[in-house]
């Protein structure tokens, strides 16, 4: 066991973890942040996407100990003062989801994409989200939501 400290959604948090514990489980089981979902657990599906120092990563392929001292943003950390983040709002308005399981990962992947490219083309959005899978095949409205968020 070792103690790690991270800034999670703007607040300092600590956890006592084994080296083999993956960041997604540290977030869910040690810190109670269950908005980040586990999908494939092998860095394919993107359901567990969070921001590490502002950039999208798959938290099933990062060890908790690798995140020691870093800044993490999860889906719980996007809203400000009760107002949804523009990407969350756009997913809501354009119904960018069906079952919703992949949605937190898609929202954070989209936030990272728009940080790097504030006005992406439709093709750039589709390429930028290629690390996230939606098994409901809801991509059409997801892309529309990201286009709307980019122009808002």
């Amino acid at each position, binding site marked *: 066991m070792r103690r790690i400290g991270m800034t999670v959604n703007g607040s300092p948090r600590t956890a006592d973890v084994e080296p083999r514990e993956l960041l997604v489980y540290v977030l869910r089981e040690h810190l109670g942040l269950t908005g980040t979902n586990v999908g494939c657990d092998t*860095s394919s599906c993107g359901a567990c996407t969070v921001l590490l120092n502002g950039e999208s990563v798959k938290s*099933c392929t990062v060890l908790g100990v690798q995140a020691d001292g870093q800044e993490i943003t999860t889906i719980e950390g996007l809203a400000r003062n009760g107002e949804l983040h523009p990407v969350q709002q756009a997913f809501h308005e354009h119904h960018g989801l069906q079952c919703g399981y992949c949605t937190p990962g898609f929202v954070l992947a989209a936030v990272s994409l728009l940080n790097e490219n504030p006005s992406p083309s439709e093709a750039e959005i589709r*390429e930028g989200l290629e*690390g996230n899978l939606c098994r409901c095949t809801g991509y059409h409205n997801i892309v529309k939501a990201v286009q709307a968020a980019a122009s808002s």
Partner: protein
Amino acid sequence: MIPSQFDYELAGTADEAVGLLSQHDDAKLLAGGHSLLPLMRLRFASPALLVDIGRLSELSYIKEADGSIAIGALTRHHDLAGSDVLRERCAVIAETAEGIGDPQVRHRGTIGGSVTHSDPASDLPTVLLALEAEMVARGPSGERAIAAADFFTGFLESALRDNEILTEIRVPAIGSAGAYVKFNRRAQDWATVGVAAVRLNGATNVALTNMGATPLRAAGVEEALAAGADTAAASAQAANGTSPPSDTNGSAEYRAHLASILTKRALEALDG
């Protein structure tokens, strides 16, 4: 949770990492972790110690010197893809990096990790082989350079010794005289087959991804081109001397077919 337990040490310097590797028999380096951690998750690897070199920011750089480009081993795919130096001086590396995995993978994965993992389905090792890149390894007694042709020794095996770390990769500044094309069935999949073509020192070098246990030079294509064959005739030689795998993404015969098609496309991209 990764099934088997292991110890973890965060290296503060490259020499500290070399020291830790020298002191432990069953240690593996951890950089971005995007090759190693999935293997450990699936129980294909179970090292006793991970030496984390992921914070050695001094090994993340791209700089030009004396007609070649020096790339720090911990430079991430994301940074390769976004590098103005590479786009101008060795664009094929940036273009290839942009097509690896997906954005999340490119935010973590590093060129050094990809190279030392030596997966024959990886894109960058093939490009580096075609570029006749030089790998710089640091061990207890100092640094040595290893030619790409000598680096990839087998399936997931490289010429790095157990107590060495890869610190730098040197590639020639060929500008835009390079192309890499690959075929995969889904956006983020590994290449079923990939082909790199570069012009270097008056010759055309061609290398293949996933056509054997290591990235391979397509000697038949190179010899045909050197003898004056046209693109189509030379490309037909792509699978000569290779032993491609058969798996769910394609049979060996299909891969041989793809190798010829993709070689033709890579050579056309080089001319285009």
